[in-house]
């Protein structure tokens, strides 16, 4: 049997092949120097939100996930190109290697036998079983059970082998597992209530770093794990520093107090200046998040496809991207990032064409009133757009849209709210007219969007997904079902192309652009590799080091 490929080796092979184009400037220093023999130095990561949740199975936000990648390991991870690399598993199960049965229902995973938890206890198949059982434990506040709740007959075959059956064939589950970090049975299984376990603030994992100390509200310190099963870590310490203000974060990056600006990174307003900084490397990384105007399709003004088409023609995308985002994001027509293997590049391109928009509205019977605003059947073409209050870029984009759409006889008003308010019932239960929102639609590298576009995923109608725009299309429903059950990549690609075309045709969302995050590192930091599929670019800090 072939030797298991070490995660970081695998990554480096990949860099050789697709590196430069995919990874931007982060790899510039690659090959210039070798990693140190023993962990050396530290990296201070600046985060604009505070990581606070350290049980990787509980609900969390992106910053927490960035920390998890360094404390814990999943069975396999997902690489920037969308492929999977085995971590705690010896190999990634597939139809070809027999890990997944031909009907997609029986899964068998072989585990590495040389992995130890940070406290020295060996990692075994019992831990895998415990983790999935814990997620499904009705008393445990698991973040997401999606996929895991279809696991049946979870059986430990040997100390390093486990098998289970799925209630339904589910090609997406492999991506869900790439986000599922394993927790130790010998610690969490021994406490009365895992929800309030001491573990949650003194986590023990299998990752490249071990828990150091946390100063609440300020920073979190991790130390190198000398017994890490993969290669690395090369840093002695990894520090996550909480800097809630982006301007301050940028200033501290400039003065050298932090080595890397993560998550929200550098604001586009500072990009031009940041590029000129000495000894700093600025990279513009495509993100999986797609910015769109998401209409509430049950509102009478927006239910009419002609209106959405006209609004789309009336939108000066280029002005928004160029003026507010300094031309960094890429305009898009799809809900998938251009880097996705399922991305359909043949979708029709939007043009800014107010004349055509006016024509469409005239033809559809939306006549201009005395105030210049159109109306049809007593419904005025007036609606509000909401987003998180305090997001300056979006607020500016909204103001541009007011002017754009006024020209075609549509009245837009801004109705922004604080995050805790807008993304509560207001968004989930479809109380909005439209929202300006950046959404990561897929699951890691998987293009499944059942939760987003299926007709049974509308919470306002009792659905269980997150389809607040209330989009419902029988053809899309059918394709979504097929896509989840299909394991063949070629056939899946065709299915998701069909979904992208239909969603674009129906204008279920008015896609604007694919986000580009601007992140900066100090020069000499080797190994920093943006990963569009991992939710955090701190996914591989274990292979970072300073060029000597």
């Amino acid at each position, binding site marked *: 049997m072939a030797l298991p490929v070490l995660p970081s080796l695998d990554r480096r092979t990949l860099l050789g092949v697709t590196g430069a184009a995919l990874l931007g400037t982060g790899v510039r220093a690659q090959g210039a120097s070798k990693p140190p023999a023993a962990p050396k130095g*530290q990296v*201070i990561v600046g985060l604009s939100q*505070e990581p*606070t*949740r*350290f*049980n990787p199975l509980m*609900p*969390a*936000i*992106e910053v927490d996930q960035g920390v998890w990648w360094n404390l814990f390991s999943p069975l396999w991870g997902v690489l920037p190109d969308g492929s999977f690399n085995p971590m705690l598993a010896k190999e990634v199960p597939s139809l070809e290697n027999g890990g997944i049965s031909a009907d997609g229902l029986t899964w068998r995973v072989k585990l590495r036998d040389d992995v130890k938890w940070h406290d020295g206890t060996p990692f075994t198949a019992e831990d895998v079983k415990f983790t999935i059982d814990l997620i499904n434990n009705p008393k445990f*506040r*698991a*973040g*997401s*059970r*999606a996929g895991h709740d279809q696991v049946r007959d979870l059986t430990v075959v040997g100390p390093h082998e486990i098998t289970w059956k799925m209630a339904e064939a589910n090609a997406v589950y492999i991506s*869900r597992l790439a*986000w599922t970090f394993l927790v130790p049975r010998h610690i969490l299984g021994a406490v009365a209530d895992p929800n*309030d376990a001491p573990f*949650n603030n003194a986590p023990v994992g299998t990752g490249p770093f071990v828990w150091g100390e946390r*100063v*609440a*509200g*300020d*920073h979190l310190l991790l130390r190198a794990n000398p017994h890490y099963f993969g290669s690395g870590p090369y840093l002695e310490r990894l*520090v996550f*520093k909480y*800097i*809630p*203000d982006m*301007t*301050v974060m940028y*200033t*501290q990056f400039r*003065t050298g*107090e932090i080595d890397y600006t993560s998550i929200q990174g550098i604001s586009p307003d500072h990009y031009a200046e940041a590029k000129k900084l000495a000894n700093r490397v600025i990279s513009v990384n495509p993100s999986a998040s797609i910015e769109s105007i998401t209409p509430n399709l049950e509102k009478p003004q927006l239910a009419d496809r002609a209106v959405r088409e006209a609004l789309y023609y009336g939108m000066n995308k280029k002005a928004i991207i160029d003026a507010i985002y300094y031309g960094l994001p890429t305009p898009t027509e799809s809900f998938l990032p251009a880097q996705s293997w399922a991305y359909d590049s043949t979708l029709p391109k939007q043009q800014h064409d107010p004349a055509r928009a006016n024509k469409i509205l005239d033809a559809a019977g939306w006549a201009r009133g005395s105030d210049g605003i159109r109306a049809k059947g007593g419904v005025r073409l007036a609606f509000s757009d909401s987003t998180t209050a305090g997001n300056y870029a979006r607020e500016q984009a909204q103001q541009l849209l007011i002017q754009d759409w006024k020209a075609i006889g549509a009245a837009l008003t801004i109705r922004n709210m*604080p*995050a*805790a*308010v807008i*993304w*509560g*019932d*207001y*968004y*989930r239960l479809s109380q909005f007219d439209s929202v300006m929102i950046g*959404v*990561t639609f*897929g*699951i*890691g590298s998987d293009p499944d969007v059942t*939760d987003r576009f299926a007709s049974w*995923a509308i*919470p306002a109608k009792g*659905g*269980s*997904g*997150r389809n607040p725009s209330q989009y419902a299309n029988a053809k899309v429903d059918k394709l979504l079902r097929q896509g989840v059950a299909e394991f063949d990549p070629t056939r899946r690609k065709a299915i998701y192309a069909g979904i992208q075309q239909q969603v674009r045709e129906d204008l279920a969302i008015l896609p604007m652009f694919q986000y580009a995050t601007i992140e900066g590192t100090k020069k000499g930091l080797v190994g920093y590799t943006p990963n569009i599929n991992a*939710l955090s670019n701190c996914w591989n800090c274990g292979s970072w080091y300073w060029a000597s």
Partner: protein
Amino acid sequence: MARYLIRRLGQSLLLLWLVSMIGFAILYLAPGGPLSQFALTPGMSEADLQRLAHQMGLDRPLPVQYAEWAWRLITGNWGRSYRDNQPVLWVIASHLGATFELMASSTLIAVLFGSWVGILGALRRHSLFDALSTVGAMVALSIPTFWFGLVMIYIFSVELGWLPAGSRFTLGDGSLLDYLHHLIAPSLVLALVTIAIWSRYMRAAMLEVINQDFVRTARAKGLPERVILIRHTVRNALLPMITIAGLQLPTLLSGALVTETVFTWPGMGRLFLDSISYRDYPTVMGILMCSALLVLIGNLLADLCYAVADPRIRLD
């Protein structure tokens, strides 16, 4: 006295109960909730959110939730933060140090500088200095703190590079000097308003004292101006100031929210703001109760001090 104390204590308890009810109601009735932050997290769906709401007991009627919270509080269990799963009192305690450091240094600056300005203003009433300090204090009271903080950052951190742009210390350094270096800008910004308040109070108190009999007597006795100033005037003028300082105590808990936000200071203000914006109910309620407790204790102490200092005030 004992009867008075018991009555005041009873009233205070009643007040605490009122505060907890109002606070709880406003907080829980405000739209959104602790789960809103996950609405956009990839991988989580409506089913997960509803299950979590049920597991956390957020789907129960408000009075039930309140009763449970209040009962736990009475039994000494303040609950755990929704964010980091730590006991609420621990969370509060772990942020108190940073705020105390900031408050103490800015109060020190304000007391020293403010008293000086106030005393001088009173002694040289209607002088140019008095006029300027009056105008200065008014302007200081009128500047939006965050704007002043940003100007400070822009000038001293970005342009001149003399002061750090925020944070409490440099990671990996953390020497006393480094702490002080980080403390300069935020404590000055925070002190600006306090200096203004303090100098006005001090001036008023001084004017009151200067014209009182014992000062005139001292002067008639031919004591040197300086001795009169320090031993009689300033000391007597400072007395009411102590009460005022005591009444500032509760602000320790809500912290210098704006200053802490501008300078990314990891103190109570930041914690309060973050807890409110993430709807971390147990922590917000914990801070609220602590700060109400401090207000009440402060009021009580102030009243008692008055009574002790001024025999004319009878407490019942």
